[in-house]
């Protein structure tokens, strides 16, 4: 019942979100709090926040599965759905952030028809790749999990896939942290950011999963313990932020550290509302932390900045609770208590090792190809995309293997072929890129004066005189002899007898069949043309 209510609340929140989205896309980045000094604003902060929340799902499903933590089964399915919901929401924000959102595909790390390659040194490219891969693998993981209800033999593939996701999720947030850590912005600096960001992401994620499990009517004491443990870890980081950069934000410490300490008090902990409120306070603290991190000195917020809250919450709630309701209806409650006869250990180990090998070689091949095409990029700067690409190939192979065991051959071929065609078409579209951009009406080419100062005389001769007089001064017989009496052959003696003045007059004003060139050839040029003709005459036999 409560799920349904929250789903409707989420949908209702989507209504203002649509207006916010429309407003933001119509007006562009001018519509939220930015200026010519602060270029990254609330969308980036919200992106970091939501991608952090997304990590919780993977943490509870994949990481704890790998680490053999037993109680993860009780929460893993809702957590996985929350990952996908939060990832979709997170993916919206960087797109809105862009000045020209429709050009987002420029960040695909592939060669283009225009011989353009992305800048592999930029963390945004790593980000783009890593998040796409993360989204794909989270969907794969959920597919295997859901599919294992129908085909119990799929359970065996959960653990290998979890081993792909476990480092990937850490990698993704490390890359998000590098967006900031590599810059020259004083408040964004910190070589410790990768671990700091991962801790923050997991902290907020745990709080989210606590809320979600309360909504399912379950209480997991471990989650409360984890919340306390992480609050101390983050305290250490917040203090370190203060020690290294002098950043101190008491709200964050209050909501993010002090309030979670209430969980030590047993009677308070026993009340579900208190637990949820504490978790919300943690989530709020981390949201505010991201805002403070991205824009320490914020220009005045506009309605759009506040609208992101509705957009994020509405989108997340609509997707999460929608999916949750659907899965509940489809699988009833079986999904939450997966207990099949198949052992999770019985996956084909050798074959999985082979898949890792193929993934590794594929990523290596990509890096090698890229470094040949763009030799200026130092190889070590390609490391951040290396692992996600490897994970994508490996994960894809594992999923294909898993489903090839349970699905009908024809269905499988059809599915894979269809996916191949769709992806191929996308790749072709991106490879060709957009049409040539004529931002302005094309310039009209008409006769204009050439720059007269520096025209070399031989070029003038070729363009103006050679059509009749010939390039070498021997007449262009193809043209002249048919229709005109032949012009006189030029000779040095003739030149000297006529004199420069009278000859230049002929050039400028014309004579007999020769046209006048005044206005198209300057007097100075006429004189140098005569010099040129004289030199041609000398060379003539």
């Amino acid at each position: 019942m409560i799920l349904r209510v929250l789903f409707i609340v989420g949908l209702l929140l989507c209504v203002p979100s649509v207006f916010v989205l429309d407003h933001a896309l119509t007006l562009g980045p001018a519509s939220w709090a930015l200026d010519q000094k602060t270029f990254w604003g609330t969308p980036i902060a919200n992106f970091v926040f939501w991608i952090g929340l997304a990590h919780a799902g993977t943490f509870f499903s994949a990481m704890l599965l790998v680490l053999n933590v037993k109680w993860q089964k009780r929460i893993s399915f809702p957590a996985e759905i929350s990952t996908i919901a939060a990832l979709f929401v997170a993916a919206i924000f960087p797109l809105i952030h862009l000045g020209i959102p429709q050009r987002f595909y420029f960040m695909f790390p592939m060669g283009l028809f225009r011989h353009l390659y992305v800048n592999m040194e930029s963390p945004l490219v790593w980000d783009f790749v890593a998040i796409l891969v993360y989204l794909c693998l989270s969907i794969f993981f959920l597919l295997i999990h859901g599919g294992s209800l129908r085909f119990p033999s799929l359970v065996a593939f959960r653990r290998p896939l979890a081993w792909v996701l476990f480092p990937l999720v850490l990698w993704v947030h490390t890359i998000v942290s590098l967006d900031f850590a590599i810059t020259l912005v004083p408040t964004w600096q910190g070589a410790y950011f990768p671990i700091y960001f991962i801790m923050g992401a997991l902290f907020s994620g745990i709080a989210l999963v606590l809320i979600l499990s309360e909504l399912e009517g379950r209480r997991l004491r471990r989650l409360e313990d984890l919340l306390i443990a992480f609050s101390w870890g983050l305290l250490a980081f917040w203090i370190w932020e203060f020690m290294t950069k002098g950043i101190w934000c008491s709200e964050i410490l209050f909501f993010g550290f002090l309030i979670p300490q209430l969980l030590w008090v047993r009677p308070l902990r026993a009340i579900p509302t208190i637990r949820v409120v504490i978790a919300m306070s943690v989530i709020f603290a981390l949201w505010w932390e991201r805002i403070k991190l991205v824009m320490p000195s914020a220009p005045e917020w506009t309605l759009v900045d506040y609208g992101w809250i509705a957009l994020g919450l509405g989108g997340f709630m609509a997707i999460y609770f929608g999916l949750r309701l659907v899965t509940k209806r489809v699988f009833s409650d079986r999904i939450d208590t997966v207990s099949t006869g198949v052992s999770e250990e019985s996956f084909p180990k050798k074959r999985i090792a082979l898949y890792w090998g193929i993934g590794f070689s594929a990523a290596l091949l990509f890096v090698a190809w890229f470094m040949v095409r763009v030799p200026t990029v130092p190889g070590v700067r390609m490391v951040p995309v290396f692992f996600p690409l490897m994970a994508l190939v490996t994960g894809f192979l594992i999923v294909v293997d898993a489903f090839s065991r349970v699905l009908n051959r024809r269905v499988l071929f059809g599915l894979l072929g269809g996916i191949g065609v769709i992806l191929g078409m996308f790749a072709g579209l991106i490879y060709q890129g957009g049409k040539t951009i004529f931002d302005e009406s094309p310039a009209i080419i008409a006769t204009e004066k050439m720059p007269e100062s520096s025209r070399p005389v031989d070029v003038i001769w070729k363009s103006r005189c050679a059509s009749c007089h010939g390039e070498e001064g021997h007449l262009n017989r193809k043209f002249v002899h048919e229709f005109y009496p032949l012009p006189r052959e030029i000779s040095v003696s003739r030149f000297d007898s006529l004199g420069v003045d009278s000859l230049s007059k002929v050039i400028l004003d014309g004579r007999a069949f020769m046209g006048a060139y005044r206005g198209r050839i300057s007097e100075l040029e006429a004189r140098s043309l005569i010099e040129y003709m004289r030199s041609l005459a000398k060379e003539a036999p």
Partner: protein
Amino acid sequence: MDQSRRDFLKVASLVLGGLALWGCRRDKNFSPAPKASSDISLWKFEIKQAMRRNIPLGDLVPIKIPGPLPKFPKEINRFGMAIDLDICNGCGECILACVLENNISRVNDREAQKGRFMHWIEMREGVPVMCSHCGDAPCEKVCPTGAAVASPDGMSAMIYPRCIGSRYCGANCPSKTRKFNYTDARAEGLSAKFNPEVPLRNRGVMEKCSLCVQRLQNDRLLAKTLGKEWRGMGVQSACAMACPKKAIVFGNWLDSESPLSQAVRGRGIYTLKSIQGLDPSVVYLVGRA
């Protein structure tokens, strides 16, 4: 039943009508685009407005004379500028010249209130500040698409059609001299094509001082057509040409005969403290060395 259907239709048509109206608000018939004006006094007024803002300059620190770029060791040209602060009185003529040369658009009143001007040159405490064209430019490293890219001639170039507006370059620029096109200047009639050689920029792309790349390109192409070696002698940026006191000198750092090399001889070379380690090509001259 009938009643409720009627109600539903009423509500639905109201909602649809509202949405249609909402959708029309961008329609040209509803809000016709203001007429573009190329009256220079409008730009002059805006420059005055921008100069009234009191932007702190920060410290200036001495640096070594810019040399060949490590990225392009074989190049014989590295263009740059020196701004003589002993002469400059901050009159702002350079900003106007820059605007007219590079077709820099105006901003609307709301943007002006927020101080989001597009001028590539900005007066900070009476000192003209523009992109320094760093040799080790942080903006180029973080641009995801390669729209901010180093040119062998020492410019840090901006390729507008390749820019997706991630604004990472602007965030990572320590001197904050990059300008983002927040407004759709053409739609609002705020831009004018003073110089046919320079394209107008769209909303959503970054721009900044280009070191008058069009002048360098034209000169280079002419020299190459005539088969001459090109050292950029005789090219001047718009701001250098416009400066009434000749405080801005444009030239080739690697050519000992260029006016730039002549002007900096024996002078103290300074730059903003925030970019001191980034090998800037545009520097300030203060006092004797």
